[in-house]
């Protein structure tokens, strides 16, 4: 049962990820990515990490992707941006990129399959014995030996906040003002 769920989720994740990178409509691409996130969240759940699964939905699908859609909706211009995007990207024009990433995939699988040989994964033949890691265990670890990580994460978020405000703020540059006039976005 668990394998079947895993394979369905994995297939959904791969297909929708492929649809994301090949979509022409930005909002459709984003929604495929949301589906990828939900599939990955299901896999986390099957692996016995309910907290990570919940965070994947709350933070990734619920906050980060909504921000993306927010910006896309602001910049979207209907048919015009669709046509522009079709000029910028066609699947037929990206065979080189496809070949390169396929080669990368083969190499990665080759190298990592060697590392994950049965001797190295202490004789369990690579099969999971699923053990749930509770939120409490995680919290004890996080505020015990990993205290520094919390501080680092906080610093990172603060710096991102400040730089995002600085970048996205409308600059009072006279040269630019001439160019744009009163146009808002």
């Amino acid at each position: 049962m668990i394998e079947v769920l895993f394979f369905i989720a994995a297939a959904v994740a791969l297909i929708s990820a492929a649809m994301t990178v090949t979509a022409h409509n930005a909002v459709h691409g984003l929604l495929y990515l949301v589906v990828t996130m939900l599939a990955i969240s299901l896999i986390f759940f099957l692996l016995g990490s309910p907290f990570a699964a919940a965070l994947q939905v709350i933070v990734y699908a619920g906050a980060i992707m909504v921000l993306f859609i927010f910006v896309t909706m602001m910049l979207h211009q209907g048919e015009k941006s669709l046509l522009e995007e079709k000029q910028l990207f066609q699947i037929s024009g990206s065979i080189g990129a496809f070949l390169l990433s396929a080669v990368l995939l083969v190499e990665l699988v080759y190298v990592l399959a060697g590392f994950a040989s049965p001797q190295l994964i202490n004789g369990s033949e690579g099969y999971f014995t699923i053990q749930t890691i509770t939120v409490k265990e995680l919290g004890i670890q996080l505020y015990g030996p990993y205290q520094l990580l919390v501080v680092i994460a906080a610093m990172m978020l603060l710096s991102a906040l400040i730089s995002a405000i600085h970048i996205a703020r409308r600059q009072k540059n006279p040269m630019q003002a001439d160019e744009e006039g009163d146009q808002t976005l």
Partner: protein
Amino acid sequence: MSDFLGDITGDFIIPIVILVALLLAGAWSTWLERRILAWWQDRLGPNRVGPFGLLQVVADMIKIFTKEDWIPPFADKVLFVIAPMIVMIMMMLGFAIIPFAPGIQIAHFDNGLLFLLAISSLSVYSIMLAGFSSNSKYALLGAMRTAAQMLSYEVFMGLAIMGIVIVADSFSLSKIVEAQADMWFIIAQPLGFFLFLFAGIAESHRAPFDLPEAETEIVAGFHTEYASMKFGMFFIGEYLGVILISALITTLYFGGWQGPWLPPLLWFILKTSFFVLFFILLRAAIPRPRYDQLMAFGWYILLPLALLNLLVTAAWQLAPTL
């Protein structure tokens, strides 16, 4: 055999009964709102169809089902159809973890509160997609407002709920209800309750925080282009949202099904209906704030208060161990 019967009741009959009851409650709360609002405003409200106008809902349903199911030609068709479904599905899923009474709960989930936050963050999509796919200015404006409003108020909702988690020492809703046997959490978490209430109103985008669909400013917001059954789904979804938030307030802060004399299920329904009525009263009593006022209220007032609440609760909980 009795095990089998027990499984059937637990796995199929109870969820279906809950589902049907919720849909009916969602539909009839539209009637309740119109009657009660009319009563408070010295009017009569719908009173023609059936006794007290109770069958008005049926008449509305017939009307809504037989209307033309129109999809605007300029809309993004697939998204336009999916959007109202998402809100219904998400609201229904939210009820899966609510403990209605001992034993009457669809999913006994250890991380119920996290599931709930996930549900509420995914329900933003229905409104954003509705706004985007309608391809109309007012719908887009409404959707943008909603996105910002719901993203912001989710933060305060999560922070307010964390106070409960600290006191009850569990993410499971049934354990939270059991932890309130001696004392309701409204006494332990008064500030958290108000934060959750504000965040809940904003999340279900009801008046006074109904800026996503402010009629006087942006026509009808995200569902401007919707008609017929798809509009009906948004409508029922909104009322289900109100019932969900009321059920959550009851579960988290007012002891859930706990209460003397009466059976637990009745207590739960009574408490939940009280909050549904409270939501309707809010709509009748309070004017809508401006959009920037809403956001400023959230980030400048609710956020510091939520953090303070969390800090004090944690300190209170840790103090005996020092």
